[in-house]
């Protein structure tokens, strides 16, 4: 980690002296270790130190972007020069209204020393205990445990100077028997917030309970989706529907539906980068403070997230959701939430006469019909048949093909407790969701395990 002062003293003079009309730089700097295991053996164990520095420059309305990980004077000079050369040869971007001005952002504690300093040996010792727990049940374990720290800074020629250091700790584990598996995971800024024993017990119990799975015919079922499964659906909904671009292109399931009822009245979906109960991160990659944005509120379509470019088309303001400067996608939600309900997972199961409990999905794809948020995917690692309020037995995995507008209109219950689920952007956010009981969820296929 370089630190706020050093980063600002390295990059601020470059921004100040840049010959472009406007200049912005974003730095992502950090180190991370990841220990991966399978068959109750550590088989991959990696560490990385890296930096990425983006320059975005504007010559009038012509924009150029270049990135490098070479932090030397020459490396930075070359990257800035590349961005200026691109801008010179560019066409004008009509919607460019200038780089954002400086605005205050929320102070958040997002960096924890112990997480940053956890050694490969400490990770291995934690993992070894998980293997030992599983071995008592003749099970093996596979998964990954990562810890790391990064610092993200945004500086621009309008005076923006944002800096935030972060840590994250993320563990996933799949307990395996000959014909079943059980999954558990957790994510936190502070490694002390991870309960490894409880996670191992969950994975082991799911694996044991789903042994000798029985076949169930596809069809419509009441499903209880655990938070990991809900998050996997939400991640795709974000990708196809919550960003300004898909909304403006007309491919989003929110396009043309603002103000209309598209989901059940008990469903509210939003993005909030300042909620420190989750993986909070207070500003976007343009240095704009994050606003809380509702995508769906009490079942009504409400809006999408914007950066300073996409907001112009819709005559609105940026919501502080810009992605890195090289990303054509522009803006997405990175701190996604579904509002919790008033029950818990145990009561949900008890309320089900007949249904399916889903731990997680595999390989969801949401490109089938984005206007109706139709998705497909498989269940995995702990899928159970429920009868008369009890888990009856494990079942072989099923394929769903379903519209999320329909599914989220059929939500009967949501748990009060919500869980943090990692996504590919976990340094700057995650998905925080409850378990959901959904009626008439459509399974269209099955597999043999």
């Amino acid at each position: 980690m370089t630190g706020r002062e050093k980063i600002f003293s390295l990059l601020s003079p470059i921004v100040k002296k840049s010959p472009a009309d406007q200049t912005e730089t974003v730095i992502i700097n950090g180190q991370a270790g990841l220990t991966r295991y399978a068959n109750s053996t550590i088989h991959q164990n990696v560490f990385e130190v890296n930096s990425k520095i983006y320059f975005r420059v504007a010559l009038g309305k012509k924009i150029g972007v270049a990135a490098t990980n070479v932090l030397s004077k020459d490396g930075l000079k070359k990257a800035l020069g590349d961005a200026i050369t691109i801008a010179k040869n560019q066409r004008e971007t009509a919607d460019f209204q200038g780089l954002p001005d400086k605005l205050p952002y929320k102070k958040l504690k997002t960096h924890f020393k112990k997480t940053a300093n956890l050694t490969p040996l400490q990770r291995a010792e934690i993992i070894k205990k998980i293997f030992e727990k599983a071995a008592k049940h003749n099970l093996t374990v596979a998964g990954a445990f990562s810890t790391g720290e990064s610092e993200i800074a945004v500086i621009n020629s309008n005076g923006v100077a944002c800096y935030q250091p972060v840590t994250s700790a993320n563990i996933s584990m799949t307990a395996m028997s000959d014909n079943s598996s059980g999954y558990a995971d957790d994510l936190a800024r502070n490694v002390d917030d991870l309960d490894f024993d409880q996670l191992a017990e969950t994975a082991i119990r799911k694996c044991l309970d789903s042994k000798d799975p029985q076949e169930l015919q596809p069809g419509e079922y009441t499903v209880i989706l655990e938070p990991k499964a809900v998050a996997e659906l939400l991640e795709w909904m974000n990708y196809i529907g919550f960003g300004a671009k898909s909304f403006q292109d007309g491919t989003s399931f929110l396009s043309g539906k603002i103000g209309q009822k598209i989901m059940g009245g008990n469903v509210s979906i939003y993005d909030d980068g300042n909620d420190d109960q989750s993986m909070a991160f207070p500003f976007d990659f343009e240095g704009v403070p994050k606003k809380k944005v509702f995508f769906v509120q009490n079942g009504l379509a409400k809006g999408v997230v914007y950066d300073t470019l996409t907001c112009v088309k819709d005559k609105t303001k940026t919501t502080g959701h810009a992605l890195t400067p090289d990303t054509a996608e522009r803006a997405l939600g990175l701190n996604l939430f579904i509002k919790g309900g008033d029950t818990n997972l145990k009561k949900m199961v008890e309320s089900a006469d007949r249904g399916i409990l889903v731990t997680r999905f595999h390989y969801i794809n949401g490109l089938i019909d984005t206007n109706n948020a139709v998705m497909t995917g498989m269940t995995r690692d702990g899928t159970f048949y429920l009868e008369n309020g009890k888990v009856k037995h494990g079942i072989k995995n099923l394929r769903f093909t379903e519209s999320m507008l329909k599914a989220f209109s059929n939500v009967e219950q949501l748990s009060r407790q919500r869980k943090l689920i990692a996504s590919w952007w976990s340094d700057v956010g995650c998905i925080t969701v409850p378990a959901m009981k959904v009626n008439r969820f459509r399974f269209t296929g099955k597999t043999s395990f």
Partner: protein
Amino acid sequence: MKEIIKETIAWLKKKGVDYADIRQVKRISESIKVKNREVEAVSKSEDVGFGIRVLYKGAWGFASSNILSKGEFKRIANLALQIARASSLTQKEPVRLAENEIHKDKYVSPCQIDPFKVSLDEKLNLLINACDLMLKKPGIKVADTTLNFFRSQQLFANTEGSIIEQVITESGGGATATAARNGETQWRSYPNSHGGDYATRGYEFIQEMELLRHMEKISNEAVALLSAPDCPAQETTVVISGNQMALQVHESCGHPIELDRVLGMEISLAGGSFMTPDKLGNLQYGSPKVNIYADATTPGGLGSFGYDDEGVKAQRTEIIKEGRFVGYLTSRETAPLFKQKSNGTMRADGWNRIPLIRMTNINLAPGDASLENLIADTKQGLYLDTNKSWSIDDKRLNFQFAAEAAWEIKDGKKGQMYKNPIYTGITPDFWNTCDGIGNQSEWHVWGVPNCGKGEPMQTMHVGHGVSPARFTRVKIGGAK
């Protein structure tokens, strides 16, 4: 840099490692996106660093850094060693590597026109003109175009004495026309969806794509899809286009033959494989017409290279022979399971990632029919063109694909267009119904630049040489 790498290798040898390798990589890239005539993004990127992989007392450690100083090489080498010691805490069986020849060589991928020397203006004009042609068609709301170029320069050295330099240039791009009406959108892409087609070639690959010649067709078809009926659910014969066959091979053959996946090393994320070792030589994976091979020497293939990332020479391996499963993709760690040498498929997504078993070019050998004949010889069925969505279970058995468009085939002729076609199946059942494969003139190596695997996630560039093919008794379902 070579000297620092040699010194670090010598230091690691002194420390008593079983094996170590160092890869120093410089990767440059250029990405251009034009949407509705407006430039959405133009960016250049440079990424430099090195990674050291150490096998110590049979356990792996890997560390990497973007700081190219002598001191940092030493620090990272030491860290990789410490990490290997930590890995040994849970070691059951020590890792033993298959033997490999020592190579001192340089490989440069073919590149007639350096894409990084073609002016930005020429590239922007191509994409803006493509947008113009798409937007001419009333009903087209979004015209999306993209070009991407990559060059990777790598220096590999290991404790066995190999020193290999490689320079690989990749080019690719494509276009998508999206039509919209009454809250519905439909799109058609050329030459392929999800970003187009890619190759280990220079800008000549983009020129040969003849992007502008195809914009009118995809625009017309995207608009026509809005009025087309939904594809009816049925069980029927399908003729599948080449670009969709590429993804069919990728998902249902390419991934399940990765031996690390088979051995459970990827089970927690990407999953396992139904093609377990007991099935090698025994499983009738497909009909006798099906021959699939891995070939890292396919000219221009996106999965082509000189040596893999543990210094094994690029080669061809039979995977499916006359329908029978005969081979895996292997590494130096996994090949000894079958008393074999690695067949050279360990690839890393940059200096900061360890190599994993990855697809190279997984090719379906051409058959003897033209596409015209495959259709003419079909009494009743569907022609499915270009991938829209993909999904497969974690052992690679139950798959479901959506295509951008379908056409009814009746008495050997293409007729009614359908929208939202989906087909689904179980991998070996599906491939065993293959009764026709397009000939050499239909065969094309499609580049797939977004194959994901591993933790941390690694995105690999792979290729699939395929022709259109025909399958019977395929289950078709609608999206609704």
